[in-house]
């Protein structure tokens, strides 16, 4: 081994002392956990891409750390009559190239969103309610809709405004940075795809200027490597700290952690539709003549058998909140009457017996293994808990690449999945997961179990037409109650996101799970 040692030794000596970073106090390096695939803010409605765009572009309406709406490029938004929203724009805002921000840029942006070619997931979902944009004066626009549309402000908080000069710029021009002209607190200065994104502070920014003159985002997708990079001091901040490492990092004197409950619910989705469902059999492996999940008592039993505190405590290592409804209690449209289902294995057994399955059955629980925090471990734990009430549970954890299509083709009987509410309120969750599937009305698009409850549909439809905030909140809460009490889905927990920072830095965690350099400050 002598030669090997020498080689390594020489190499190490050559490198010794060169590794020290040349960062100054004005610079920040952040490690991201998921790939940023494009700097075009309208190409792909994808979390990591939006996360970058948020530094360089502004929305008309911004979401604060708790996803409440606050003024962005719009200073006010009011509903006028049944089908019009009047938006007042901020004056004195300049784009990075020095040109003024006006109503024309908003019109251009909405046009560009519908135009961007080859988009695998377009932002038109946030602009499709806008039937017409009228420019009243350079700083006022009116948005026309078909009938009352109370969610307009939420939609306006989900797409970024670009300069009218970029209206016909293809995605490549944004990736080359030539078209990436925004109004945001940062400007892109370098983009090495798959490796790093470098930004510089926009000294002419209209809002609060960030503390860091230069910010580098590095891509480190492996969680352990990300933690190691933080420990080694190569980066000052990382996102998505693995739950397993949190306890140890808390004891580390050089590291601080920031945490925030997220808008993501982890839940079990069930087949409510098929008369005979493929992955439930009797204990001998023969198919049952009917789908037990159509029986409310069976669904309740499966829910009661789950020890949510146990999952949060042991699997999530305390980093999570047991869930009793569609979003954590602090969000808009949630119901104060819904609490996490109590762990009650005996009650579950009794319900199963009442439903005609005193000896349980055999079930296969599917789940992804690379998508949500500890997803593979959660499905095993749920299966473990079900086996305690006589439901013999098998587990199949698949990579998202193949899981997503199988789920979408309705091949599973029951599976674990997550839902993050981009609008920060329950209507997104209700209409996607629990509303009756209706292609033309755009309802229930993720309701792959085809749950259907006319009462819920009616309440939700009413809520979606109610502009009055308080009343809408109550209706959404009522719809949530209907869906959750009928066990349309089985909520497990809300994810809590964790960021790791160098000691001396502070970050206000965000419900949307974004990692924003603008919100990183030197702790006082």
């Amino acid at each position, binding site marked *: 081994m002598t030669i090997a040692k020498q080689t390594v030794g020489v190499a190490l000596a050559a*490198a010794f002392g*060169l*590794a020290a970073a040349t960062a100054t106090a004005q610079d920040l390096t952040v490690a991201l956990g998921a790939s940023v695939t494009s700097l075009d803010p309208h190409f792909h409605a994808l979390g990591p891409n939006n996360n970058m765009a948020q530094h360089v572009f502004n929305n008309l309406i911004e979401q604060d750390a708790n996803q409440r709406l606050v003024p962005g490029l719009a200073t006010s938004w009011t509903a006028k009559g049944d089908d019009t929203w009047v938006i007042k724009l901020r004056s004195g805002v300049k784009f990075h190239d020095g040109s003024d921000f006006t109503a024309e840029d908003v019109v251009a942006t909405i046009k560009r969103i519908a135009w961007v070619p080859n988009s695998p997931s377009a932002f038109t979902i946030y602009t499709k309610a806008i039937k017409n944009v009228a420019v009243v004066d350079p700083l006022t626009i009116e948005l026309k809709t078909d009938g009352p549309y109370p969610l307009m402000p939420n939609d306006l908080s989900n797409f970024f405004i670009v300069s009218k000069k970029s209206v016909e710029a293809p995605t490549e021009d944004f990736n080359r940075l030539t078209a990436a002209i925004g109004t945001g607190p940062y400007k892109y200065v370098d983009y090495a795809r798959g490796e790093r994104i470098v930004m510089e502070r926009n000294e002419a920014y209209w809002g609060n200027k960030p503390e860091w003159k230069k910010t580098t985002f590095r891509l480190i997708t492996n969680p352990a490597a990300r933690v*190691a990079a933080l420990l*080694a001091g190569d980066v000052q901040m990382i996102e998505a700290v693995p739950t397993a490492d949190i306890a140890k990092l808390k004891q580390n004197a050089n590291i601080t952690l920031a945490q925030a409950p997220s808008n993501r619910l982890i839940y079990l989705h069930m087949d409510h539709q098929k008369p005979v469902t493929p992955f439930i059999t009797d204990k001998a492996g023969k198919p049952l003549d009917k789908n037990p999940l159509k029986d409310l008592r069976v669904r309740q039993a499966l829910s009661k058998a789950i020890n949510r505190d146990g999952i949060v405590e042991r699997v999530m290592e305390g980093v999570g909140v047991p869930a009793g409804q569609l979003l954590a209690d602090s969000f808009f449209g949630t119901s104060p009457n819904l609490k996490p289902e109590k762990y009650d294995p005996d009650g579950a057994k009794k319900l199963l017996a009442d439903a005609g399955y005193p000896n349980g059955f055999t079930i296969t629980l599917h789940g992804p293994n690379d998508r949500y925090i500890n997803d593979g471990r959660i499905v095993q734990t749920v299966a473990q808990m079900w086996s305690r009430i006589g439901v013999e549970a098998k587990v199949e954890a698949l990579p998202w690449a193949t899981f997503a*299509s199988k789920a979408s083709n309705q091949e599973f009987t029951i599976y674990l999945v997550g839902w993050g509410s981009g609008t920060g309120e329950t209507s997104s969750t209700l209409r996607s997961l629990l509303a009756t599937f209706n292609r033309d009305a755009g309802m229930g698009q993720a309701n792959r179990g085809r749950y259907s409850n006319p009462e819920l549909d009616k309440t939700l439809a009413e809520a979606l037409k109610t502009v009055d905030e308080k009343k809408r909140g109550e209706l959404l809460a009522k719809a949530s109650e209907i869906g959750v009490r009928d066990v349309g889905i089985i909520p497990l927990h809300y994810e809590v996101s964790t960021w790791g920072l160098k000691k001396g830095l502070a970050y206000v965690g965000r419900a949307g799970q974004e990692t924003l350099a603008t919100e990183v400050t030197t702790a006082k």
Partner: protein
Amino acid sequence: MTVFMVRRLMQSVVVLLVMSVIVFLGVFAIGNPVDILISPDADQMERERAIKALGLDLPIWEQYFVFLANAARGDLGRSFVFNEPALRLIFERMPATLELAGTAVVMSLVIGIPLGLYAGLRPQAATSKGIMAGSIVGFSLPTFWQGLMLIMVFAVMLGWLPSTGRGQVATFLGIKSSLFTSDGLAHVILPAFNLALGNAALIIRLTRAGVRESLLQDYVKFARAKGLSNQRVVGVHVFKNILIPLVTVIGLEIGGLIAFAVVTESIFAWPGMGKLIIDSINQLDRPVMVAYLMMIVLLFIAINLVVDILYSAIDPRVRLQDVKG
């Protein structure tokens, strides 16, 4: 020789076609890319629009013929994920990968051949036994585990080397590479070493086996009897004999290092081609997968060609018409 090359080239085209068919069918079997790429908030109409925009609404054979028609014009398609030409994405990752693979091969040869020669020439020595036992450890550790340990020891505990990523790039003789800066070199050491360990172990073992065998061959005995120096016997006669298996294996491993250093590139956040292919597979970015794998087929065909030519150069007993296959 020319006939040999032309025939190889024609066969390669067939291999490329077969590969592209397999990838098309494979992706079709794994899942629908739109299910991976689409925002969960998108409704059914948007999903249908996206499927159409990506050309996935056509029957699979039609999609394939569209691909073939474009490929004939040199266009291997645009990435679903990046909205950039697939070939551009691959080429922009290539320098990083070649740096890493090249450094790893050099490391594994520098470590492997001397140790293997030593162990082969003195099979009974305790050092040799130590080398052999050590080499086993080299390939029995899973690379992801070994990689993280290297980071923990050399970056976190000792702080000698940067933990992850690629260093600064400089241009030298028109070539852009991070190997020309000290920062870049510091960054490449750990991932390259991680890749090199397994191969070094294999090279040690093959070298030793070859040496031991050739020492007993008549021509080596004859060379010794002729009174040639030990140095010359080992350096020329023995060394030549171990080259055939060594060249084969190194050929295979170089290809693997370039194409599929997936785990090492993930752990060390190295922006290379391996990272690109795993991301593309995970997102079912079919245009990139097809283009990538076709490039890799070409690479392996080229490597095998070189290996076959080297065979006949190293060992006159192998003639090129023998390896015309």
